[in-house]
């Protein structure tokens, strides 16, 4: 009962706050007037005035990400020579750094390293945390461009990338991060430039605990859908998640901006029902996921004859762990408050499925919603054919090129995921990192690639990912998973933008109805199942059956 109240309270708070922030986002991000932020960015010599077409917008996205990439790569490869390195962390090797950089610029935050023992404070603050902000802002910018493409008529302009990124960073991310950083400091997270503190344990031994600017990094880690922890233990670590209240607040923060993005959409649309339809589909998928995961987690592990307690942080209940696992995979956050490898197979299944479908249940900041739109377009195409009318969404005809790009964006990350997993499971360099044999090992590999292709970043634990093989392949996975979808979305936005909007008539397929919501739900599940069913059967489903014996 308490668990149910927890979930309901959590969701209600997220919806309430999301609506408020979403409304503010819709207004402030689309305001035509030049605001202080624009002027400030303009001073720096960046053009925030001109309107961009899809090619310019995409180019800006890529250039921006590339610069961020080079900068971050340089910082962590040279951190030994940089200031604020009290614990004297060494420079990172190229492939490891490549993987970390890719991970942070794609908003994945897959961590092949243990934060506290690898990173200098400068790398943490100036390197990683900056990308925590910017990669989230890129997601929202692409989303904004996509929604504009839907709404504009016979126009090529999707807005200004620099304006979108800077406004979102400065007006939304920064104030929220400062607010919650202060709150987290109050809760007991460290915020210091000191490298280590020394503590005396109960046994009377002195231990050195690495500390640093944890609270400030945790705020944006949760808000921006990043999930990359300061500590290897992520949110299981007492310094990253000190109290039950901080646990609850962090659960809210996982959902907050993704939910706000959906509300921003709702407030941008002339017909808000379209947005509520998407919101409800996401909500239903989330609740079903939580339900299945909860049920799986409440089973008894036939091997240990206990609940699934191994690998969990005993400060949190098993339900709080499974709830976090569902939210973090639904929302492309990637933080964890328990080791997902230790969850019940069914909870793992839910987490895997969430990531495999591209994390569209609220999803990453911005990225979840534009991913969802791809499913919506596919559903519109299929359903439109069934009602006997050329498919159209917001009055825009969905034609060959759109279907082509939707297909690319929805299928290819999944395909590559399977191919990479198959390679990993059949090469010695791939197999050597796996810590369990058999079905669980398959889950480990599948999880690693699903997490990187879905730009989630949560780790299954168990797989030693810092090898040349996994650094290369998961790195590629993160890049493909992020940019195939971004390119497709911007191409589609550009193509939809120049189309004229056809007036809806009685024969038009309505996309704001319950029927359509069910169709959309069906398409998402069927597409995910078609791609991954065999793999899931051999991984978590087989394991579930074994545990049931």
């Amino acid at each position, binding site marked *: 009962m308490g668990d149910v109240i927890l979930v309901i309270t959590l969701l209600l708070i997220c919806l309430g706050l999301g609506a408020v922030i979403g409304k503010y986002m819709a207004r402030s991000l689309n305001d035509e007037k030049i605001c202080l932020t624009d002027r400030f960015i303009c001073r720096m010599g960046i053009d925030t005035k001109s309107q961009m077409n899809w090619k310019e917008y995409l180019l800006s996205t890529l250039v921006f990400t590339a610069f961020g990439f080079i900068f971050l790569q340089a910082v962590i490869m040279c951190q030994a020579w940089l200031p604020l390195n009290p614990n004297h962390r060494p420079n990172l090797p190229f492939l490891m750094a490549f993987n970390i950089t890719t991970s942070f610029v794609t908003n994945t935050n897959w961590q092949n390293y243990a934060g506290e023992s690898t990173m200098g404070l400068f790398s943490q603050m100036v390197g990683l945390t900056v990308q925590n902000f910017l990669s989230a802002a890129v997601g929202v910018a692409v989303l904004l461009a996509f929604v504009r493409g839907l709404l504009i008529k016979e126009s090529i302009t999707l807005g200004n990338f620099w304006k979108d990124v800077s406004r979102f960073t400065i007006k939304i991310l920064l104030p929220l991060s400062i607010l919650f950083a202060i709150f987290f400091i109050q809760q007991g997270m460290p915020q210091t430039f000191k490298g280590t503190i020394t503590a005396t344990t109960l046994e009377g031994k002195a231990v050195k605990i690495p500390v640093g600017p944890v609270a400030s990094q945790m705020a944006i880690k949760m808000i921006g859908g990043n999930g990359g922890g300061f500590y290897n233990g992520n949110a299981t670590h007492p310094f990253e998640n000190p109290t039950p209240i901080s646990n609850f607040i962090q659960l809210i923060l996982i959902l907050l901006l993704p939910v706000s993005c959906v509300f921003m959409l709702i407030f941008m649309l002339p017909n808000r029902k379209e947005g509520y339809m998407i919101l409800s589909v996401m909500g239903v998928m989330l609740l079903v996921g939580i339900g299945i995961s909860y049920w799986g987690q409440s089973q008894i592990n036939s091997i240990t004859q206990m609940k699934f307690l191994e690998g969990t942080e005993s400060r949190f209940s098993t339900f709080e762990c499974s709830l976090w696992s569902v939210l973090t995979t639904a929302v492309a956050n990637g933080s964890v408050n328990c080791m997902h490898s230790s969850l019940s197979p069914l909870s793992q299944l839910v987490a895997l499925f969430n990531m495999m479908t591209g994390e569209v249940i609220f999803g990453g900041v911005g990225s979840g919603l534009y991913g969802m739109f791809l499913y919506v377009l596919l559903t519109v*195409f*299929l*359903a*439109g*054919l*069934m*009602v*006997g*009318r*050329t*498919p159209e969404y917001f*009055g825009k005809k*969905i*034609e*060959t090129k*759109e*279907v*082509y790009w939707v*297909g*690319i964006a929805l*299928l290819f990350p*999944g*395909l590559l995921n*399977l*191919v990479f*997993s*198959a390679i990993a*499971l*059949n090469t010695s360099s791939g*197999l050597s990192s796996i810590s369990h044999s*058999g*079905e669980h*090992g*398959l889950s480990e590999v599948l999880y690693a690639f699903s997490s990187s292709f879905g730009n989630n970043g949560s780790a299954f634990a168990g797989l030693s990912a810092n090898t040349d093989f996994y650094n290369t392949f998961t790195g590629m996975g993160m890049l493909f998973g992020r940019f195939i979808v971004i390119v497709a979305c911007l191409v589609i936005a550009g193509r939809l933008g120049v189309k*004229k*909007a*056809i*007036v809806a*008539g*009685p*024969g*038009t397929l309505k996309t704001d109805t319950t029927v359509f919501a069910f169709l959309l739900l069906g398409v998402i599940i*069927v597409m995910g*199942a*078609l*791609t991954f*069913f*065999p*793999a899931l*059967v*051999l991984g978590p489903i*087989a394991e579930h*059956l*074994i545990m049931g*014996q």
Partner: protein
Amino acid sequence: MNEANTDIDFKKGLDFKNAIIDSFFKLSPRTQIKNPVMFVVYLGCLSTTAVCFVSMINQTLSFFEIQITAWLWFTVLFANFAEAIAERKGKAQADSLKKSRTGVNAKVVEGKNIRVMSADDLKKGMIILCEIGDLIAADGEVIEGIASVDESAITGESAPVIREAGGDRSGVMAGTRVVSDYIKVMVSCEKGESYLDKMVALIEGAERRKTPNEVALGILLVFLTVLFIVCVITLKFFLIYLKGGTASIDHKEFLILISLLVCLAPTTIGGLLSAIGISGMERLLKRNVLAKSGKAVETAGDIDVLLLDKTGTITYGARMCYEIIPAQGVSIDDLARAAFLASLEDQTPEGKSIVQFLYQKFNVKKDNQKDDTICFIPFSAETRMSGADLMDASGKIISSVRKGASESMRQFIISLHGDYPQSVADAAKMISQKGGTPLVVSIDEHVLGVIYLKDIIKQGIQERFAMLRKIGIRTVMVTGDNPLTAATIAAEAGVDDFIAEATPHAKLQRIIDEQESGHMVGMIGDGTNDAPALAQADVGIAMNSGTQAAKEAGNMVDLDSDPTKLLDVVETGKELLMARGALTAFSIANDISKYFTILPAVLVGVVVINGHDLLSVLNILKLKTPESAI
């Protein structure tokens, strides 16, 4: 076309056989590769056949192997067959079309002889003779004679116009009808490659281009096929890992995996995609509509605004008798009898309608008159009157009845020193204002009254418009009439909107406006002045009775010249899309169930603990052996 249809039915048996033969010919890789989905199945067939051969050499050939191979070949052949039968049908239709086409005949003047030839064979510079009732076969210039010509089919103007040699009024258009006198016309516009010929080529399927939706769906299917190929291959690698890393594959496993792939591939829709396209064109043809492209058919399913040319589509195009109004002091029966006499031998549609009207309303019959004493005076462009002279036995004219346009009748009466009553002038004016045509009737120098001629609306058209409205199509009537007339007819026909005094430019502008505000516009027209509008509209349907220009501009031609056909066209367009949509949805949804049927067969013995094959729980169909699953 009835004859043609029976022709096809007769041929059906033959086609069936030919289609089977065709489906084997289609097995060549070059044909197969055009359909990527089926090509994958085709490759599967080849590989399983190879496996069979290897087994045969090793003398281990099992029934299972033969069975799988046979099933796969059957799948390919069935898809080929569906396509072949559709193509065959199209061909049969095209053949019958070629046979059934009967062009307009023209009387070609060669020196003193007159030779009748098909309008399609007319060459530039030929001189054709057009007499009363003839359809002018080609565009040209009048070089001799004067005639009134009904151009309503082209201009929408109900009243006939005068065409004569020399001067500005010498041009005549194909599709117009001579209603009085005769003219000789020099053909100025040769018919190029016949429109029908182009159509026939399209129907035969040779030139069929894929429609946008078909292409889009094709892409999606290719993606899905790629997905399933990857799924099956990676599945094998996952199995290798779980079984301890030995990368071997036996015949049976190979066959099962191939059949898993073939089952998953969207063969249902993939195999039938082109057949659906062909059958759509063919279905339209059954309804006597020729479509230039499949795209037009599909687009027809989307239109939500329909512009209809009034003349010939909503109304009959010819004016019909609606009422007779006697002059003051004249009994209506006298007027009826005089009007009847004046129109009895009048072969124009107006004249016939007057006779019919009077017979029905006033029971005026031919028997009441003495036939042999009537001398009919046909309409002439000069006097703009027609009528009859009543003669006694000796041939002396007793009285003469006349009917004609009010102005010319007034002059005629005054020339006879008669009196043209004010009540008749008023009645004529009132009729004109309502959009009708007044015909004044006189006997000798006495004016008896007025015949009210009116454009009559086709029967059943209101119901059709109501149905169009129900499926979300707004109808707009386009007419050259004045706004008053247009409003009257629009209200009567039940259209949603109308454009009066429409010039070709106005029609075009209206279509552009509608399109700009986001509507898909269909246009039905038959006149040359409709051509720009037909070309601009998303779907332009030209009447077969219309001009060549209109037919060239539109993307469909209605052989029956029945504008309400659009409903059928829209329906077919929707059916086409729905057939594809339903099959795709079925194909994809079915894959889920196929996973449950075939995966257990693939996974037998993979996860065995304490002698229990755990994954057998997936086998919800409780199939005993993997073989039976497939």
